[in-house]
């Protein structure tokens, strides 16, 4: 037993400390730097571009694909890479292997010139143009639309405004009912002076989002996670996955000022969407216009968009054919984990096959 003054320390603890220090020292030799990691894993073509928005079309992995193509509207926070972050955890690859024809909207990186882009530009402009493009390309009248997180909100608004274009709507952790959201993010969103923010700085800077991330389980995420990383430095698969997710987390684009303003006011502060009182581009949004089949996915441990915030979509639409799935995981776990591969995606794929 080693002693320091009066304190006796178990040699096993000393051994752990020494091992941990060695791991920290060895880390740079064993792990690639975030900049050296390429996040995209599944091949695609850029089939459509508008301003900074790109529409990606993933190369098929099966001989035949389902007739109705799927467009994924990713969130406006962070980037679409999380849906294709690792071959073994790729949302996109799994769907391709199930025979889906998959398109993804990459919203790009808005700069100061984009500060006046608003909900109308995103929904009736970019999203609508992507849908029209895919309809033309694939010769279909309607597409399946999946929206993740804030992309779920954009997709809900789109489905309410353009139901004629949407055959199936998949909402994955959508932000719908801001007043019911129990996350710390919604608490901050309710208390910021968004008008002053947009007038003074224009686009919402990524640093603001990083602050929001940092107060989500700060000790688990800010301390324990990194301790585990160094403890598992020899575990190639663990380290690879860790670095990919970390790189993704630290790469969020700014949000156009006007879009952010309407987002905070209409969704979090005044909660207009779920009350059917929201207007986009001068048009009234009623969730009752959503009559197409709806598949809502929520995660019970979601600390970014609480299930209470997402689930009201299921109860607010007029769809007769609707399914609500609740998974025992978190916001990212639902889309990029072994659970998503084994349970979430097979259930989604099956549902889409039945509705194609």
């Amino acid at each position, binding site marked *: 037993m080693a002693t320091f003054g009066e304190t006796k320390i178990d040699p096993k603890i000393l051994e752990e400390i020494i091992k941990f220090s060695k791991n920290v020292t060895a880390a740079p030799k064993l792990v690639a730097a975030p900049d050296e990691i390429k996040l995209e894993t599944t091949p695609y073509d850029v089939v459509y571009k508008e301003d900074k928005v790109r529409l990606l079309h993933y190369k098929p992995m099966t001989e035949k694909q389902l007739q109705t193509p799927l467009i994924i509207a990713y969130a406006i926070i962070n980037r679409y890479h999380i849906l294709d972050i690792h071959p073994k955890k790729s949302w996109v690859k799994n769907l391709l292997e199930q025979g889906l024809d998959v398109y993804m909207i990459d919203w790009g990186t808005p700069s100061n010139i984009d500060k006046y882009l608003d909900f109308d530009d995103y929904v009736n402009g970019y999203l609508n143009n992507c849908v029209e*493009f895919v309809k033309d390309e694939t010769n279909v009248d309607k597409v399946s639309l999946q929206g993740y997180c804030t992309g779920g909100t954009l997709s809900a608004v789109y489905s309410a405004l353009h139901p004629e274009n949407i055959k199936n709507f998949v909402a994955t952790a959508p932000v719908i009912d801001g007043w019911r959201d129990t996350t710390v993010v919604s608490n901050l969103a309710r208390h*910021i*002076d968004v008008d002053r923010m947009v007038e003074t700085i224009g686009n919402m800077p990524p640093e603001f989002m990083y602050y929001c991330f940092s107060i989500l389980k700060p000790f688990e995420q800010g301390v324990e996670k990194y301790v585990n990383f160094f403890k598992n430095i020899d575990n190639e698969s663990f380290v690879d996955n860790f670095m990919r997710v970390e790189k993704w987390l630290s790469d969020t684009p700014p949000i156009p000022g006007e879009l952010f303003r309407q987002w905070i006011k209409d969704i979090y502060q005044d909660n207009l969407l779920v009350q059917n009182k929201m207007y986009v581009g001068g048009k009234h949004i009623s969730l009752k216009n959503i009559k197409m089949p709806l598949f809502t996915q929520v995660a019970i441990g979601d600390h970014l968009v609480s299930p209470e915030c997402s689930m009201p979509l299921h109860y607010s639409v007029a769809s007769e054919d609707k399914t609500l799935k609740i998974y025992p995981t978190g916001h990212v776990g639902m889309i990029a984990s072994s659970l998503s591969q084994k349970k979430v995606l097979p259930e989604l794929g099956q549902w889409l096959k039945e509705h194609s």
Partner: protein
Amino acid sequence: MKTESTKDTAEYYKHLSVFWTDLIHLMSSKPQALSSVGPMRNFAENAKKISKELIDANDDLVEFNNSLVEYYKQLTDTWNEAQKKVNFKVPEIPNDPEQFDAYKRVWIDIFDNDFTELFDSKKFGENYGKLVTKELDLTKHWNNIMNVMLHSANLPNKKEMDELYKEIHSLRKRIAKLEADSRGKPKTKKETDDGNVW
């Protein structure tokens, strides 16, 4: 809360600054008129705007500091309270690896719970809102000062750039609408072979 005497002092210095910059400007305007097209002349004319911004910024800085102090007080109080809970639950730090891991788990759970409760509270939200607002007010003063300097150098300032962005946004919308109208359906732009977007 700002006292009357603090207000009076700030007003006095603001007046003093404006008075002397105005007076010096009036006294020196004729000989300096020779350099009227140069940036320094332009800057001299606008110097009082900078003085005024700095004095106003001082008021906002005081309020920003008050909110910042409250912000750190909330964090410190929560930390102390969480540590007390940990000490109550596990009075002594265990001395073997397995129990130490359990101790660490308890520590993290209690700290995460207490801090999440704080971040979710109205008092934190309100103070955070004030803190961000005051930071934005300071940013606005900084922007105003930069606007004066850029104007002095005959460069476009933030306000002028904003007007330009707004005009470009409006033009984009008009073009998209014209394109859609000309096709008789919602617009799409396909990439051409050379990569240009139409």
